């Protein structure tokens, strides 16, 4: 690894839960039975160009393609919708406080996101 290389540690967790029959208490979902998580350190998969926007309320944001890693957080306001085909189809939603992060295919992910009302977001791309 050369000097100044960028690495990203990305972790995603989820906990499916099920309400027991009397409606009092939530348990780990009995179809799944455990908490789920995965993590990885991305390094050689990415380039070294980092673009971080801590806060913006200007929409839509059309990043287009060419990224190796993408992170987006809906900081406040209305839900944010995310498209991977340049805005033709918005397929993913983020509500306030939620974040999305993934290693993306630089040629296949044509990233564009927009608000469903009025929002503030934070995002990061690495190329």
């Amino acid at each position, binding site marked *: 690894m050369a000097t100044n290389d960028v690495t990203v540690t990305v972790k*995603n*967790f989820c906990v499916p839960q099920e309400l027991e029959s009397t409606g009092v208490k939530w348990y780990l979902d009995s179809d799944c039975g455990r908490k789920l998580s995965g993590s990885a350190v991305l390094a050689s998969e990415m380039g070294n160009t980092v673009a971080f926007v801590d806060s913006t309320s200007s929409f839509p944001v059309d990043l287009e393609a060419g990224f190796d890693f993408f992170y987006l957080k809906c900081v406040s306001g209305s839900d944010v919708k995310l498209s991977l085909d340049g805005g033709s189809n918005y*397929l993913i939603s983020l509500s306030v406080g939620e*974040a999305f992060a993934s290693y993306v295919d630089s040629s296949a992910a044509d990233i564009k996101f927009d608000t469903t009302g009025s929002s503030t977001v934070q995002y990061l791309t690495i190329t």
Partner: protein
Amino acid sequence: MAQDRKIQFATQVIAKIEAQQGAHTPSVPSKSHSAVPGSLEEYNLTKAGYTRSVTYSTRSAYQYNKTHTSINKSLGGNGYIDINATQPGDSWTSFISPQATWDANVSNWEAVDDTWDGIITISSAVVQLSSDANALAFCYIKNTGSNTVKITLQYGAGSPTYPFKLVAGSSIHFKGYSTNLTLNKIGVVRDSSDSTIEYVIAKV
């Protein structure tokens, strides 16, 4: 049937940059210490003094990772989503509960999407995670194998794109927007070599 279901989820991202610390030698104080300075009436305390010499060797250059200077903090978020209490069959997760009974499972046991350990093999043929056409509420996929897999949100399209990649050990989760994304559009295929995944895919 479950009374109700929900899923809590979270994401954490820490971006670091490699930095280099050049070779350096810390300042080398050569210190003399008296055990107790001064003197008393009957004798001189400085006679009990001693000299302590502290030396530091030169440290060679080394590299280390520090939080990326253009970010300077860890990133992430969390939330939860209510999902339908009645999910489409047992295959809404790749897992089989250890409490499952034969007659409580409505899927065919010979179906490829039912596994005991929650592990699905991913090879060159795209694996559709669900054939259900309801709107997707939430999807979680983890690469439990050793090789990268790719994810499409356009399963069944003529030329589906694969915008997301999962390296070994990593996972992804996302919520569907409105009714634009349905369960049957999520597919997974290997990048270059076979791998395995576990997943949860839930309808609204």
